[in-house]
């Protein structure tokens, strides 16, 4: 019995001949991630009057294979913010663990300094969404400077220090920006134009109600499912507001789909061109 991990799960030598191990021993320089492996597709988010709504489907694809269909890609942070991950799923899991550690450290240090017990439950003194976004930006940028990037595009939603809705993006190179609506991956091409119809400017976003924003985002998820071949009809939806904190639902399903348009378009599978 060969106990080396390199020998696990290989074809039997007596049937298939000696296994070619050569690719396992790289003699060249150390290699970091060259491409994402298991991936999540778009994350979309839209600001409204008193908060932000964010959505991402629950699919983790292995190339074009819909490999894992129950992988939520939105998480809350310290009951103040929502983080949505597009891109590599293993790097998302790394960031997820890292953010959990960070929030535990923050919770410990912010609770021990509270001299008056009445505000121990409040979230003041912990990292807000703007702080968290800045931190993630520095983290991703430093990783890319080490030529070992975390292959993600991340959206961060919540409230800033003056308690106004906050939404910002950071990508695998550490490029950061904000906008009233944001989308990663395919969503940047498909969902962003739809969201901009409702909230092109901060002023327009500040007039949207929660119901309107949620409806727009749900509509965008539907369009993404129609057009993005790496998407799924089950998705997570998060709403973050000052009053309600973070509400995440991880078992949303697309409603009222209509594929009628598909008949007129080449490339939707069932037709013979």
């Amino acid at each position: 019995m060969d106990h080396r991990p390199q020998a696990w799960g290989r074809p039997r030598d007596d049937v298939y001949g000696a296994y070619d191990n050569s690719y396992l021993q790289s003699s060249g320089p150390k290699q970091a991630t060259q491409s994402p492996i298991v991936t999540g597709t778009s994350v979309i988010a839209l600001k409204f009057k008193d908060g932000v709504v964010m959505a991402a489907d629950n699919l983790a694809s292995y190339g074009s294979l819909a490999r894992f269909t129950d992988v939520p890609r939105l998480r809350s942070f310290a009951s103040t913010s929502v983080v949505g991950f597009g891109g590599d799923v293993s790097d998302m899991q790394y960031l997820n663990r890292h953010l959990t550690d960070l929030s535990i450290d923050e919770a410990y240090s912010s609770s021990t300094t509270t001299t008056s017990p009445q505000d121990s439950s409040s979230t003041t003194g912990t990292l807000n969404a703007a702080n968290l976004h800045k931190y993630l930006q520095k983290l991703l940028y430093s990783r890319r400077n080490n030529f070992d990037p975390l292959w993600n595009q991340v959206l961060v939603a919540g409230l800033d220090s003056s308690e106004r809705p906050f939404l910002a993006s950071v990508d695998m190179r550490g490029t950061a920006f904000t906008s009233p609506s944001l989308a990663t991956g395919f969503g940047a091409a498909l969902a962003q134009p739809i969201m901009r119809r409702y909230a092109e400017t901060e002023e327009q976003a500040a007039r949207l109600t929660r119901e309107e924003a949620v409806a727009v985002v749900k509509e965008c998820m539907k369009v993404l499912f129609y057009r993005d071949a790496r998407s799924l009809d089950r998705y997570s939806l998060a709403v973050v507001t000052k009053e309600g904190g973070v509400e995440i639902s991880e078992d949303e399903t697309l409603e009222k789909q209509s594929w009628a348009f598909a008949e007129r378009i080449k490339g939707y599978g069932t037709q013979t061109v």
Partner: protein
Amino acid sequence: MFRNNYDNDSVTFSPQGRIFQVEYAAEAVKQGSVVVGIASKTHAVLVAIKRNAEELSSYQKKLFPIDEHVGIAIAGLTSDARVLSNFMKQQCLSHRLTYGRDMPVRTLIDLIGERAQTNTQNLGKRPYGVGLLVAGVDERGGPHLFEFQPSGMTEEMVAFAIGARSQMARTYLEKNVDKFEACGREELIAHGLKALKESLVQDRELTVENLSVGVVGVTGEGAKRVVEPFKVYDGQDVAAWIEAVADDKEGGDDGDAPAAGEAPAGETMEVDE
């Protein structure tokens, strides 16, 4: 003949369980001129007596701004304080860079506490010969005052004094400790000056040359939060405050009675109870 064999380094215990190098360092703090710190609900103040080495020289600074929201008062070896002050400035700046917020004061204090303690546990190192009072504001309960000792001990205080003859000032502070929380900016400074006066040698008094005052404050929470950045006042800027407590001394009984002119009448009665 009676040479102490157990004070050659900071890692050796004496048979009585003492570490002499650390105790000597604490003595160095007592050689420094006195500094007083007080925190209320809205402000934290540091006041200090500056000393000049000789008649012809200038006065050694005692208060140093660290960041927008933090300042320190030093008692002991100024050169060691410089090292700590530079370290604290660096840490505050790097925290601002990574998180985009003021560093929580407790977090900062823990860093210097840790650093000072390791100095007492390594052969070939020595403890810092300086004690600090650190005043700052953060989003974790407003203004804070911390004491730092060369042993690495740190503690949050309502009010405290370190340095030469500081026991007299502490006695004043203990007598008035219940009043501080409700004090406004000017009242708090007045209390600081009165505490400082207690520690003065017989024929010395507060002058615009030897007095230094540092103030940091915060009002409101969340969106309405306004910070008064840490600022050091010297020279003619402190003349009015000296005047205010000097009047007081003539007017009423020494020390714990607030100025008859400026303070509300109710407070004078409180003292009499």
